[in-house]
Every structure is written in C-alpha cells, then in structure tokens.
C-alpha cells in the first residue's frame, strides 16, 4: 500500500497544482473557500481510486479532487466565472459542480450534510448493482454535527455499504472551533456508535491519509462495510477569502503553517532524491504557466445566452 516514488511525485503534483488553481480562483472570487494547508487530506483520500468508484469531495478542496479525477481545467475555470464553456454552461457554480460523467457527486445546494447521504446512496447503488466499486466521501468537522452524517453512517453500517467516510477536520466550522462544537474528543470516536471502525490519521501527511483510506477502500470492496476516518489538519486561512479569521490567534495558525503538507512532502521527495530544488522550480513554473493560459482562455470564453436559461428545461424528457 506504500506509495512508490513515482506515485509520491504525482501526489505532490496534484497538491501543488491544487493550491495554485485555488490561488487563481481566490483572485476571482472573494466568497471562495480555499483549502490551503488541507491538500494532503484531499489528495491522500482521492488518490489511487478506480474510475468506477464514486467520489464525493467536501466543498473545501473539491476543485482539487475534480482535477485529480481528470476534469478539464478550462471548464472548471469557466465554471468559476459562469461561462458557457463550463460543465453546466453557466447554470451552476463550477467550484462545487462535480461532473457525474467522471463519477463525481458535487454539492447542489448550500446546506452541509446532504452530500454524505448522496454518497451513501451511491454506495447503495454499487451494492444493488453487485459491482465492487466503492464510494468515498469527505466532509468537514462542522458537517459531522448534522443529522445527515449520523443518519447516513448508521444506515451504511446496517446495510454494510461499500463506502469510506473521511472527515477533513480542519478544526473550524466558519468561526466555531471543533473543540467547542463536538461533545466527543474526536470525530472518529463516533464510529463506535455505529459499530464501524473509526480511524485517526495525520491529515497533513499525504502518505498516512492515503494508507488509511486505501485500507478502508479494500475493506469496503470486500463487502465488509463502511469505515470512518478522521484526518486532522488545519484551516490556515479564513472560512472564505474575505474572512480575516480574527476569532483565533495568529500564533496558532502560524504553528500549523510550519506543518504545511506540501513543504513536508517536498522535503521528503528531495531526501529520496526524486526531486531537486531546480526541478521543483521548473515544475512549478510550468504549472503556473498552464494555469494562467487556462484562466486567460476562460476569461475570453463567451457568456451564456438566453438559450441556456432553459425556461422549459426543468424536467428530463423520456429517455
């Protein structure tokens, strides 16, 4: 289950690419919710899954998971801007629209929790269809206090569904620290109440997250039911771009910044001799260039016209 050097390098690329893409989005949207510092959870969770597995990423970092799944960067950026070239032609916001053709379930409204139920439904479908595909869903510590979380996990346990629940615990729900919102010590502790394994893992270590998730995926694929994994990380920025996060100490955020998952992995790759400083620079530069070219293209893309409004397009026609 350990990652090969090549896989580590590819995980690194996704993490860096993800952060750069989010930085570009941040410049466009003041209400975007970046995942800076949480990339190891996202990449570790959604790496090495099969294309017939269904992924349901948490809104914070969803874009990164979409990229890993092979979503088109141009269409993602067009989705941020609401351009006609986006996956929904501008009908829906692109940062949380997971194209279903890539077996991604997105977030279709603003309330937290329903994605956990939807993911559970995807696992139910896999079971009913007698395939060995699994569903992997991630969500925040805050969402784990919603009824959807509790009801869905209990249901999955009772039905022994092939699903992995990953809590991307960044320790904040907007301004509310997890320690003030959870009656238990850790989200993983809740697993005992549903009769499933609960695993704690270092969310800033992509290798650790990946190993825990892959172990749970294996279990789910064999028909042994769900697992709840809590990956502990930290939201180094505000809830959204426009949030200065004055409700917590700058020291605390500073301490966690030192544990940056990208920096950690970079050091590891250098020590392993997989990367050199100059190779890293080249790599980053080429990614930056790719992103700015795509952004430019998306900005030049056309706006949707009246034909996209679809006044008579709310019902699917007979198939």
């Amino acid at each position, binding site marked *: 289950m350990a990652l090969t050097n090549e896989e580590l390098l590819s995980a690194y690329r996704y993490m860096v690419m993800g952060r750069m893409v989010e930085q570009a989005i941040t410049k466009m949207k003041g209400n975007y919710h970046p995942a800076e510092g949480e990339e190891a959870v996202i990449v570790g969770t959604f790496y090495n899954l099969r294309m017939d597995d269904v992924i349901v990423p948490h809104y914070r970092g969803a874009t990164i998971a979409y990229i890993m799944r092979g979503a088109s960067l141009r269409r993602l950026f067009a989705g941020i801007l609401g351009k006609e070239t986006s996956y929904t032609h*501008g009908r829906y916001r692109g940062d949380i629209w997971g194209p279903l053709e890539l077996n991604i379930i997105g977030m279709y409204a603003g309330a937290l929790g329903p994605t956990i139920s939807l993911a559970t439904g995807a696992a139910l479908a896999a079971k009913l269809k007698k395939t060995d595909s699994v569903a992997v869903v991630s969500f925040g510590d805050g969402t784990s*206090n*919603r*009824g959807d979380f509790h009801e869905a996990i209990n249901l999955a346990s009772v039905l022994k569904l092939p699903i992995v629940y990953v809590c991307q615990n960044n320790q904040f*729900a907007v*301004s509310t620290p997890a320690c003030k919102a959870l009656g238990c010590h850790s989200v993983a502790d809740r697993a005992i109440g549903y009769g499933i394994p609960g695993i704690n893992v270092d969310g800033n270590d992509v290798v650790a997250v990946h190993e825990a998730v892959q172990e749970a995926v294996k279990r789910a694929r064999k028909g042994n039911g769900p697992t709840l994994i809590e990956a502990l990380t930290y939201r180094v920025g505000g809830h959204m771009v426009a949030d200065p996060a004055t409700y917590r100490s700058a020291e605390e955020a500073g301490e966690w910044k030192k544990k940056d998952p990208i920096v950690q992995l970079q050091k590891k790759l250098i020590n392993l001799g997989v990367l050199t400083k100059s190779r890293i620079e080249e790599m980053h530069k080429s990614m930056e260039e790719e992103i700015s070219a795509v952004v430019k293209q998306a900005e030049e893309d056309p*706006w*949707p*016209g009246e034909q996209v409004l679809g*006044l008579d397009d709310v019902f699917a026609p007979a198939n």
Partner: protein
Amino acid sequence: MRRMTYQEALVGAIREEMRRDNRVFLLGEDIGVFGGPMMSAKGLWEEFGANGRVIDTPISESAIVGASVGAAMMGMRPVVEIMFGEFLALVMQQLACDASFMWYYSAGKTRVPMVLRTKFGVGPHRGHELDYHSWLIHVPGLKVVMPSTPYDAMGLMKSAIRDDNPVVFLEHMNLYHWIREEIPEDEYTIPLGVADIKREGRDVTVVATAMMVHHSLGAAEDLSKEGIEVEVVDLRTVAPLDKATVLASVKKTGRLVVVHEAWKFGGSGGEVAAMVAEEAFNDLRAPIVRVAPPHIPIPFSTPLNKMYLPDKQKIVEAIRKVLYK
C-alpha cells in the same frame, strides 16, 4: 434620531428586546465572537454572551430549531438564527409541523413564542439566495415577515420577538448593508400583519416585498415622469396578509401588479392575486399581472441571473401592460 442600516436596525431591535426581557435569548451558528454571518448578531455576544444568552451552536439546524420550539413551550423566548433561508429545508418538520400547529392543537393552551431569523436574496453574494417564503405562508400558524427598510426591520423585529407565535423573519442580504435610514431614538414597534404604502398613486397598485419594493419604487419613479402614478404597497408581513390595505388600494386604482423574488408558480403573489380576484373583482379594470422569476432553479452565471430576476424594467413593462399602454 440615528441613522442605521438594515443590519444595524435588526441587531438594535434584538439588543433592546434582550435588555427589556430576560427570557429572550439567541441560538445560532457563528453568532458568538464572530458576530454572525454578515454581522447578523454583531455586538450581542459582547453584551449578553457572558450570561449565556447568546449561544453559539454546532452546525445542527434541526436540533437548534427543535430546541427553540421546546424552550419556547417552556416559557422562554428564543430568537434562533438559521444562517440562510435555503436551510429552512432542514428544519421544516420542527417549524412547520410542530411549532406552527401548537396553539391550535392545544386548544389555546400552548404558546410557541419564537423567532426564526434567516438571510436570503439574490444579490452580489452569489450563494444561499433562495426565497422560500411561499412554502411558509402555506402553513397555518406561521407568521412570515419580510422587511424592505431599516425602519421597518427595527419595528417588525421588536413585534416578532414580542409575538406569542412562531415568526419567521426573512432578511434580504442585498438590503443588509445598503441604505441607511433615520431611526427614532424613542422605542416604536410595527404590528405584524400590517402593510405599508411606500408610495401613493392613483393609477396602478404594485404589491411587493423586500428587495422588490425598491425595484417597484424605481419603476414608479420612472413612470411618474410620464404622468403615471403608481401606488407601491409593501406587504412587510406576508402572513398574516393585510388584505384590507391591498383591497383599498386596488379599489382606488383598479389595476394590480404583484412582484416577488420567489418563483411565480406557486408563489405568494398568486395568493394575493386570487384574493383580489375573489374579493374585488368588480374593482379591477384590467387583468392582474405577476412579476416573478420563471419556474427554473436560480441560474449562476451573471447574465442568466439577470434574465431570471425581476427588476425595475420588468416591473415597468408589467405596469404598462395593466394600463394597456
């Protein structure tokens, strides 16, 4: 006099009611140190947090609304904040099946004096904009308030907190930090269920709520230059509906346009139109016209969003239509 925004007026009303009545307390997500999304509870934590009257909760909407219903039944007066109107979907059981029917089913024994406040509205914020007030007015036993100005927000919030029934208070995000208005230093309340004529006119009645009141006033201003005098009725409270004010206005003008941000199909505007058709058909000199979004989900992209939403121009066109001009 003090000049306040809509947000300041709302918070001001809650502050004054909390000082007046120690049974009033707040429950909601991020309403503590953070001050609430868009500063919806700014300053209240500092004044009332220490004695436990501003409670920052986990993300558990159905639990906090259900707990508010229970606390209200036991004599407290909760003001529960659900961040955004679309989350009403998470609390409809507790709100629209339990709280709403309590007084009736208890045959006049059990009161549920609570306010559920929430933010909604299409605007620059691009998210959480759904206007679900039409769901709520269908339910007997719920009062539904949608103010359009800081002055009204202050007076209506005070009445909502003092009311012995579940009141849903819908706060439009576009209005939140927009206009400032003179607010009297002396205390005042505005009764629930009473509409306000925001502009008098003899030719056409426009009935509107929240942000649409402002677009309607803009339309009235434009048409006034052509000698068309539009009367703008701001419902302020959609349930109970102030039938008398609407009917009196229609009796005067003989023409009615109804505007809202919720979908036209099944929207509260249909109820206003039907009420007028039933009770004042003979006063009408033209068919009633509704201006409301088409029956599609709110589209994201800016140009689509503009096509979707009622605005001044669409209201002007509707007014011309009922005037056959």
